[in-house]
């Protein structure tokens, strides 16, 4: 049963790709990205998210520098 579903899903996805106008598909992808970015788990473009990311990158950079200096 599982193998049948695998094959069916793969077949269906390939068929969808062949029948989806590329311009329309790109429009949908962009709209989906915009929608996803508005959801609670995907808040990248906020000051808080930027500061969190900045702190992680600075911490990683400091660890790397300490490792280099021994």
């Amino acid at each position: 049963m599982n193998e049948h579903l695998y094959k069916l899903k793969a077949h269906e996805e390939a068929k969808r790709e062949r029948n989806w106008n590329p311009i329309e598909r790109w429009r949908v992808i962009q709209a989906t990205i915009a929608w996803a970015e508005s959801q609670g788990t995907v808040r990248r473009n906020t000051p808080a998210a930027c500061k969190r990311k900045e702190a992680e990158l600075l911490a990683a950079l400091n660890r790397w520098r300490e490792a280099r200096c021994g």
Partner: protein
Amino acid sequence: MNVDLILETFNRHRVKYVLLGGMNFLLRHAPILTYDVDLWIEDVLENRRRCETALAELNAEWGAGDDDWTPVAQLPTDWLVRQAVFCLISPAGAIDIFRSMMGLEDWQASFNASIEESTSGGVPYRGLSDFDMLRCQYALDPPFQKTQRIAVLEAALKRTGNRP
């Protein structure tokens, strides 16, 4: 918002469904982007009819093959009975309709265990539980399993004291 439109249309037509897959994971856990909305519907005649109506309103398209790709509004009633999985396109996005799921045997049990949530746009939906999402992943062959998703789900379930 396009995904909101899909869910809102399904809600308005009283389609009984559970949101699963990448979109469910994105909404509940982590921003791993996905481009299709996966919906597992209750596989009974009336619900399939409601689903067909919702998909027609969304101007969804599907075909058994490349030669008969068409708006679903033009398909005969109960076209959803033809197979277990359908991959459709619509102006609102790619939609996958599942009548059965690998790793999950009982739609009603999964629906009862599903989590009632809302998108940021305020659209309510029922999302597959973390427990069931993990069961779906375990049911896949290893090359197809999403290791990052499994790790996040296992950690979430460990925090709540649940185990698949």
